[in-house]
């Protein structure tokens, strides 16, 4: 956890599950900082696009996982205020 208020692990789940999770989280905890893990290939594009559409702030986006394991992305996002 990178000082986030909550972790959302959506590895293994297909589009649009990761951004659905962000949509739900911004209803229940507006303004919170969440860490989202996703390995769906669409997440790379959809998470930044969702942030732009919703007025959320994408604090960081990094690729994680190693040479021997599958890779995923870790997004840290400040959800929009209500």
């Amino acid at each position: 956890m990178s000082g986030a208020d909550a972790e959302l692990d959506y590895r293994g789940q297909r589009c649009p599950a990761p951004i659905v999770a962000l949509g739900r989280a911004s209803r229940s905890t507006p303004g919170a900082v969440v860490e989202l893990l996703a390995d769906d290939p669409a997440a790379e594009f959809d998470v930044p696009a969702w942030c732009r559409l919703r007025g959320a702030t994408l604090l960081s986006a990094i690729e994680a996982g190693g040479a021997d394991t599958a890779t995923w992305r870790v997004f840290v996002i400040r959800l929009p205020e209500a």
Partner: protein
Amino acid sequence: MSRVFLAAEAGQPASAVVRQARIQAESSAWARPTLRAHEGRVSRTMLEAAGTAVATAVGAPGARVVFYPSLVSALTAAVAQLGRSDLGAVTSVVDRRAVLDAVRRQTSTTDRESPPSAPRQVGVDRLGRIRLDELAAMLADGHVGLVVSAVGNPEVGTTQPLQQIRQLCRAHDVPLLVDASMAGGRMELPADWDALVLDAASWAGGNAAAVVVRPGVRWRDEPSAELAALPLGAPSVADCAAAALGLEAAVADLPAHAEHDRRLIESLREGLADVADVVVHGDTERRLPHVVGFSVLYVDAEAMLVELDRKGIAVASGSACAVESGQPSHVLAAIGTLTSGNLRVTLPLTAQRSDIDALLAELPPLVAQLRAEVGL
């Protein structure tokens, strides 16, 4: 139940004019046009007439027309036979997969001592329009043998600034190949090209494709070694003749038919704007008349396709979950928009207002239902 077909980029039935023309042509032009006998000459004459008709229909009488059995073979040949073969081609990041593949093939299947430089791709803005400054910089760098651009993007509709692109190309003496595979017969084509690729499918013209080459533009007749190795095949003369007749008929209906398409897509764009959290892509004004793409937030594209199909409506999608490759659309990724929940409408030649009304009636309740299922 009558179907509402709004996925014409996947094909559309040949029009009655085209089917009739093909049956007639098959009865006389059945021999290989290269046969040195009367029967071959009959075919050859018909093929030449078809070429003349196509050149005239695209506003370039006197241009050379070469027919192919498919869009992929036409693009492959055009990329290989135009421009300088020792230099790489430049495309944009949003060109259709068949274009990007043709360019990659030309670069990789080579036994020359120094293969042409790797294909380079010009970036686009949020509407999907080519960044002219990037293209200018690539041309200024040199080592560009050919520039390829679409008339308009098949996924988001945005048209490209072909006039400015051609000016840049001319300044560097590089030919411009324009992919009109979506636009042919559907709008008045711009004149800013050195060579043009057409797909008869766009005007309900059956199975044929063509490359139109302006007089004075270099077209290498001898296919290069790598091109000769590809099974491009020859089209049937009857298919070419029928496609040419179909193009003439479609062009005769312009610009009224393009305006009809434009209005239908405009009302669809307006209707979609009333649905919460739908992002409609591309330029509202400078676009292909018959194409629109949009993304529906929080909804699985595949679920929408299945449910719409059940209600009798066929549309397409560029979302990862809805395509064979499992990869999100490179076009949507490049313009930085949502790749999930994507739907794509391409009007067939026969589209009516009732088709748009049907989609606009079914989509909002379906979206609401699918969102409710995920708690949004």
